[in-house]
């Protein structure tokens, strides 16, 4: 997969629309199911080691517009950075997918498949179910802006509220655990948080992939561009996969995914980076679920109680809210 990049510069291929990339060595003829696609990588579902171990394959195809040597080096750098962070963080007990294999020279990384759905979808479904009704009448939170006053208004949520608030607390604690290690995610959106389905008591009660036929060739199915790699604006409420909400359970562990932009924060920058992580997550809540935004307060609350620097980070978050994610260039 090294050379094709060079030849492609000569004859530009129009592979931008359909991800018909030819995968490197062992996967060229394998059956893969495209799960999602970001700016830099394609994410497939496949098997590893045994036919019944589902895994996620993240492939960063060579970019034809880059010089091949530079391209290789950048790809290698990024995959390795992601793999290292994942392994290190997992070692410390943060819930992230395990790294199972990889080949940076060829641009792929194999990770544990997390059975479940994204928090974004969970929230979408939760809103759809109308679990939210009560609060909406109480207060229509201002859309978009991440004002925290929206959160205070409805503490006495009521019956079904406890469960969703508990989910929020789990999110807060998981993020705190990551931040406690001075690792910042870099693209913390609701799409990059998974709710791992608790192991079903019997066979396959799980949603998603398993409901479709196993692996029917290389497809270009869903084009959920969930992982906006740049982390710019959180993706605006595109209708995610139109599937009936079957499993509405909010139980399960939170798993953080997509560490493509993660970095070890330095002493000086760590509070800022952590605060920006939270800010991005807050915006993701606001953008995709304006109605559910008050839930974010619960995330912050759990976060604040989870590690010693958290208070400082939350203070910093107030600054970040005022000016946005980017730091001012003045001074």
């Amino acid at each position, binding site marked *: 997969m090294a050379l094709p990049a060079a030849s492609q510069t000569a004859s530009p291929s129009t592979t931008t629309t359909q991800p018909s990339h030819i995968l490197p060595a062992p996967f060229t003829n394998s059956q893969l199911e495209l799960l999602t696609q970001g700016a830099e990588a394609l994410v497939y579902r496949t098997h590893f080691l045994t036919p*019944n171990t589902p895994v996620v394959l993240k492939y960063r195809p060579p970019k034809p517009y880059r010089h091949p040597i530079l391209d290789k080096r950048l790809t290698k750098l990024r995959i390795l950075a992601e*793999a290292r962070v994942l*392994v290190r963080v997992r*070692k410390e007990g943060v819930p992230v997918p395990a*790294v*199972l294999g990889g*080949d940076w020279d060829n641009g792929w990384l194999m990770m544990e498949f997390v059975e479940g759905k994204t928090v974004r979808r969970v929230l979408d479904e939760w809103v759809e179910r109308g679990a939210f009704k009560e609060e909406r009448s109480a207060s229509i939170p201002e859309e978009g802006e991440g004002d925290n006053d929206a959160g205070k208004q409805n503490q006495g949520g009521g019956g079904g509220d406890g469960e969703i608030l508990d989910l929020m607390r789990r999110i807060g604690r998981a993020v705190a655990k990551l931040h406690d290690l001075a690792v910042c995610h870099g693209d913390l959106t609701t799409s990059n948080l998974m709710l791992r389905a608790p192991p079903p008591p019997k066979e396959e009660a799980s949603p998603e992939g398993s409901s479709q036929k196993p692996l029917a060739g290389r497809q270009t199915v869903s084009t959920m561009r969930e992982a906006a790699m740049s982390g710019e604006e959180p993706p605006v409420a595109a209708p995610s996969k139109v599937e009936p909400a079957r499993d509405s359970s909010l139980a399960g562990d939170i798993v953080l995914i997509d560490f493509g932009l993660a970095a070890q924060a330095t002493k000086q920058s760590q509070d800022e980076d952590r605060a920006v992580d939270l800010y991005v997550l807050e915006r993701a809540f606001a953008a995709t679920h304006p109605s559910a935004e008050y839930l974010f307060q619960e995330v912050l609350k759990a976060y604040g109680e989870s590690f010693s620097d958290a208070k400082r980070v939350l203070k910093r978050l107030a600054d970040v809210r005022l000016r946005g994610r980017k730091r001012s260039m003045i001074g």
Partner: protein
Amino acid sequence: MASVRTFTLPHYPDYPIHIALFKDVSNAEYLRSKLLEADSAFDYAFLDATTVSLFDHDHIISPTQLLSAAFLALHLHLTSRSKSRTPHSELVFRLHPNNNIGESYRKFGIADSTTSLIAVKLGLAPEITNESVAKHLGEHVKGESVPLGEEGQELGQWADEAKLRKIYKLEPAGGGKPKKGAVNGDGAALDPRKEMEAVILGLMTIKGS
């Protein structure tokens, strides 16, 4: 005849992996000497069974650590990027977190004192079959052959957890902070061995990078 189980990796269906497990092996010294002579008939990866970990969880994971190393060795061999001389030595090398081949052999390879042994043969040529491997091993390994199940869970039964934690520089079991289960609050407590395996696979993957 020794009992040999053949595994097939999903992405390398053409290269089966033959694995045999022995206990009460008495001639480890002889086998090791054959390896040192680089006798081509003894082109195996002989591993000390105490340092291969695998844990059955949920019946999903099979002898993951070993197969993962085999996959990496095979993959690197087929793309001509092996760091060591043969695919079999590469397999031993891939198990170790550091970039030191000799060290890998000392830690994972057969030692003169080895009594429980795992023999791995990569099916790189068509004449290497389950039968040929079984026959050859049966003739040369003095020990009791342990049949492997479908998933090969038996491979992990002698795993020495403390030894493995030391090799991979993991925190001792039960030590340290409360683990992930506490973070998420609900769900069943995590299987520490499963966690350990996840980290080991990661370390094997990013080694030498």
